[in-house]
């Protein structure tokens, strides 16, 4: 693959089918480095499955995924994270029996034995976690067991977990789902800041308002393959998109 920008993520004709269902069907996607990419598409169009293939959670049947020109198709999820790719889950996943802070202490990208055997609760890390919680507006809950959080709070916490691993590329599966509109605004502000710091974003979202205001580049999925891509404006104008997704 041609040498590209340091944080380029691309998928070459990925396919994944489950029994009969072709969840992802020969999808080729190049995400714009350093920008906020959005993926939209009807329910069941394969967005999440596509992300699962990209992040190594499931093995694609065919096709290849590359990060900074390096192939990562068969790499294990944890290795991919270490390469700087962080992702959040749609049905939000947190560690129920851990406190909010501990939830953020889990991700460790450095694999050296010294780091691993080092103290988990060391001050620097804990302070960093605290700052993230503040930016997400849930720092007052730091001592609470995650299972006691409300749904939206859990979504925020999950986002925090992803950000703690300081990924260069952040993949978010419906970060705004079930989140209060005001918080959505803060989240999008946060995303923009982090993007300004040079992180690439890939956001799957059904909240069109958010997608249109936030993203620089939009990919539209339908029946497992990208049917259109471009700036929000372009995409919004595209008849295929209107027909397949917006349904107006």
């Amino acid at each position, binding site marked *: 693959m041609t040498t590209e920008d340091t944080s380029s993520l691309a998928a070459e004709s990925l396919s994944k089918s*489950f029994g009969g*269902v072709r969840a992802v069907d020969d999808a080729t996607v190049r995400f714009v480095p350093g920008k906020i990419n959005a993926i939209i*598409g*009807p*329910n*069941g*169009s394969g*967005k*999440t*499955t596509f992300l699962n293939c990209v992040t190594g959670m499931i093995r694609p049947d065919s096709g290849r995924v590359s990060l900074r020109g390096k192939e990562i198709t068969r790499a294990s999820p944890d290795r991919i994270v270490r390469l700087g790719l962080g992702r959040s889950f*749609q*049905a939000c996943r947190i560690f129920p029996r851990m406190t909010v802070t501990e939830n953020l202490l889990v991700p460790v990208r450095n694999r050296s034995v010294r780091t691993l055997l080092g103290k988990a609760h060391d001050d620097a890390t804990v302070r960093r976690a605290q700052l993230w919680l503040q930016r997400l507006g849930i720092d007052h809950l730091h001592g609470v067991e995650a299972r*006691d*959080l*409300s*749904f*939206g*709070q859990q*979504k*925020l916490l999950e986002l925090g977990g992803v950000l703690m691993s300081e990924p260069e590329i952040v993949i978010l599966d*419906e970060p705004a*789902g*079930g*989140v*209060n*509109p*005001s*918080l*959505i*605004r803060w989240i999008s502000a946060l995303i923009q800041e982090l993007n300004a710091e040079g992180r690439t974003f890939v956001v799957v979202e*059904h*909240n*069109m*308002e*958010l997608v*249109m*205001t936030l993203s620089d580049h939009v990919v539209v999925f339908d029946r497992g393959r990208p049917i259109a891509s471009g700036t929000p404006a372009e995409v919004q104008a595209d008849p295929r998109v209107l027909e397949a*997704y*917006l*349904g*107006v």
Partner: protein
Amino acid sequence: MSLSSTGAVPSRRAPRQRSRPIRACWRHTLASESPPNLLELDRIEAGYGHAALVLRGLTITVPRSTIVCLVGPNGAGKSTVLKVASGMLHPRGGTVRLDGHDVTRHGPQQRLRAGLAHVLQGHSVFPEMTVGENVRLGAYTVPDRATVATRVQFVQHLFPVVSEQWDVLAGLLSGGQQKQVEFARSLMIDPKVVLLDEPSMGLDPKATATVFEQIERMRDTGTAVLLVEQNARRALQTADIGCVLDLGRVHMSGPAPELLDDPELSQLYLGGHVAG
């Protein structure tokens, strides 16, 4: 006991006539000479385990063929309200009345039989049963096969997923598809009162539209709908009455349109007017 409680209703109403905005929600419903309230939550105090209270003396009433929409920050207690209403969580104080009868002590099944349905937030399909089984189970309490059959057809027509994926294990569906199945399942009965916890979460625009259509349909067929939505604008556009919940109290309430135009509200709870 149902007698005494119904008897108690009018006497209780009197003092609340002149009450602070916290009861506004309820007062408003009186104003619009609407039929008796199907669901009444009266000065509810509730919390989880030993932890502090989540709901602190909250009062909400939902009249027949009305959509009351609860909006509020995450963790305000919206889902908790619904759990209390459906009997999944027993309040520490206050009373729950269903069609005038005190059901505070009743469990979910009793309230279901009394005509109250609750669609949970997040995923509540039966993951290892097919979409078909899931939908049919929605009509578990409906004895008449014919009715079930017609309703199945109805939801299949509403949500293509249901018919297309009829034999797929529900747990394997995509997030949005699962929500659609859940909603379809809730349409298998026609209850007097429906509690919907963020039905449009994770749905694509088309499905969202369908869902809101159905909510309106329910309202028009006389159902009382208590709707929790984070997609607040959309929700308030559909709803008759809006209640803003914060810190476990009714922070503000009134006719949905009024709330929509309230600047302070839209700033704090509706995320302002997202430019663009």
